[in-house]
């Protein structure tokens, strides 16, 4: 239904609350037309604050500005900002039917009845809720309510669609199937969207780009794959997936090597003394093959794969993801192969 998507440009947007706490440090962010941008981070990182700032539900400190397609909306009240928002618990209007909920934005804007009916009908088709049109929200399942909330948010053709943890209220299993469905729906709408979540899988599955946030600021911004493979901060690496931390001595760092017992590989000094590697990037092999020698200390069978914990001398135990049919049991001696290319490259910070 969207004819032309808009860009969102945020410059030096910061939020200081009345009591002096800083919800958001000065932040710059540009979102391309029709792009789905995820704001990802732990609770209290400022992601919801940034979303509410874009919506106009929070004002920003002096000096910052927000533009939609070049037009300054910094001081435009939320009612006039033409954003669509999907709330964490949907915030559907309980006394209105599904159809009336979806049409609410059109009704308050004075769109004529015929057009209202047409748009609501189209959206009911899109979210596959035609037969529920006259039900009340309380009669719907969690997944259906979430679709009503989405349809309601896009009905008045907002410039930007904002989603605040839209899958949080659902149970884990439903969440996964709806995640993909929601991603497809958003692409079909081809609307500029900002998606707030604390679930990295959700963000990676849905977003074109994501901004990982911590303590009121964006730590790293980029495509999900790039962030996962080339995090520039230890925080990003650890937040997006599991990581093993391997330390090396100052001497090894200067020499540009990593030595684990008798096993030595070249690792540039620029990687710093704290190295990180993901469990799926370590491979486990019989003890006579070249690699870091270790002993299996736990074995967790997960069906399609087995997760082993291996104790290395002088290091924290490392996690290794293996194929479901590996023979290793607790107490077995093994050797762990590390490809230097898989070590996550960032500087000193642990």
């Amino acid at each position, binding site marked *: 239904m969207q004819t032309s998507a808009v860009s969102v440009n945020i410059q030096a947007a910061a939020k200081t609350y009345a009591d002096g706490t800083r919800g958001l440090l000065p932040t710059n962010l540009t979102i391309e037309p029709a792009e789905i941008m995820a704001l990802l981070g732990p609770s209290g990182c400022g992601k919801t604050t940034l979303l509410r700032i874009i919506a106009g539900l929070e004002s920003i400190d002096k000096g910052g500005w927000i533009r939609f397609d070049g037009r300054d909306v910094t001081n435009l009240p*939320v009612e006039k900002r*033409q954003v669509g928002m999907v709330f*964490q618990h949907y915030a559907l209007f309980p006394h209105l039917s599904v159809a009336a909920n979806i049409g609410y934005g059109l009704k*308050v804007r004075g769109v004529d009845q015929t057009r209202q009916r047409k748009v609501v009908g189209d959206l009911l088709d899109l979210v596959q809720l035609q037969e529920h049109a006259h039900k009340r929200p309380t009669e719907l399942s969690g997944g259906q309510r979430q679709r009503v909330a989405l349809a309601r948010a896009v009905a008045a053709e907002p410039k930007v669609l904002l989603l605040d943890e839209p899958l949080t209220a659902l149970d884990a299993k439903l969440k996964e199937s709806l995640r993909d469905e929601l991603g497809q729906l958003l692409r079909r709408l081809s609307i500029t969207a900002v998606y707030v979540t604390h679930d990295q899988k959700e963000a990676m599955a849905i977003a074109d780009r994501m901004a990982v946030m911590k303590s009121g600021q964006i730590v790293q911004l980029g495509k999900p794959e790039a962030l996962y493979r080339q995090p520039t901060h230890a925080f990003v690496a650890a937040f997006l997936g599991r990581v093993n931390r391997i330390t090396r001595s100052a001497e090894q760092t200067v020499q540009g090597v990593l030595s684990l017992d008798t096993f030595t590989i070249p690792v540039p000094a620029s990687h710093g003394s704290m190295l990180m590697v993901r469990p799926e990037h370590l491979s486990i092999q019989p003890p006579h093959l070249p690699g870091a020698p270790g002993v299996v200390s736990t074995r967790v069978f997960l069906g399609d794969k087995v997760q082993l914990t291996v104790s290395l001398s002088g290091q924290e135990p490392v996690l290794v993801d293996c194929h479901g049919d590996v023979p290793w049991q607790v107490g077995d001696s093994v050797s762990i192969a590390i490809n230097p290319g898989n070590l996550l490259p960032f500087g000193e910070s642990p």
Partner: protein
Amino acid sequence: MNRRTQSPGLALITAIVAIFMLTPMVLSTTAALVNNYSQGLASGLTLRWLDQVITVYGQTVVWSIAIAVACVIGNIFIGVPAAYALARNPSRWAKTFEEILTLPVAVPGLATGLALILAYGTLRDFRQSYSFILVGHMIFTLPFLVRTVTAAFQRPDLVAMDEAAKTLGANFRQRFLGILVPAVLPAIAAGSLMVFTLSIGEFNLTWMLHTPLTRTLPVGLADSYASMRLEVGSAYTLVFFIVVLPMLWLFQWCTHLLEKKYAN
């Protein structure tokens, strides 16, 4: 699932309490229907006391209901916006205001009545009309409505609904009347029921505020107990039951329906 309680001891206690509470009601209503209370049923049944009550005090019943209904309507108009303002205003002033609002509940009705007479007693037309009593009732019952509705407005889902309507482009009037008030309707109904009940039975304050020409049911009741036969007073009680209880039940039933309809 529906297993009845099987403790005979508990059943006995329940029966005793129920009988203790019902006996005065039964005696009082019987007294209203016998020719002579001291002779009991032997003196024969009659409707003449009821007839006398309706002739002498009929107007008080009508006025009591009118005042209670007006009190509910007036308090909804004042109380619902006040509740919204209090719910959205986190300042200390709002807290203080709410405390002051609740004061008439704690202060004896006689004192409130006296204060009203001191302040407005000289406005003769006002003082001698039923609106003087109505004002007293509204002051006394307003906090019950405001408290209930404020709590409803403060619910996080209501705050989110308000924001959702804002993002959809609704102005304040559209949000308030179209979304928020319907969403707190069960609370408004529950608060109104409280207001109606309190107003119908209010005696303390009304006794101070009434004039010989402006009497409500409870004031009339006191008058009949003091100056007429016991049978007339009892007949008055019976009239109260017959008129007021069905209204309360109807009101309660409506509240219940609303709660079911808007349950989230």
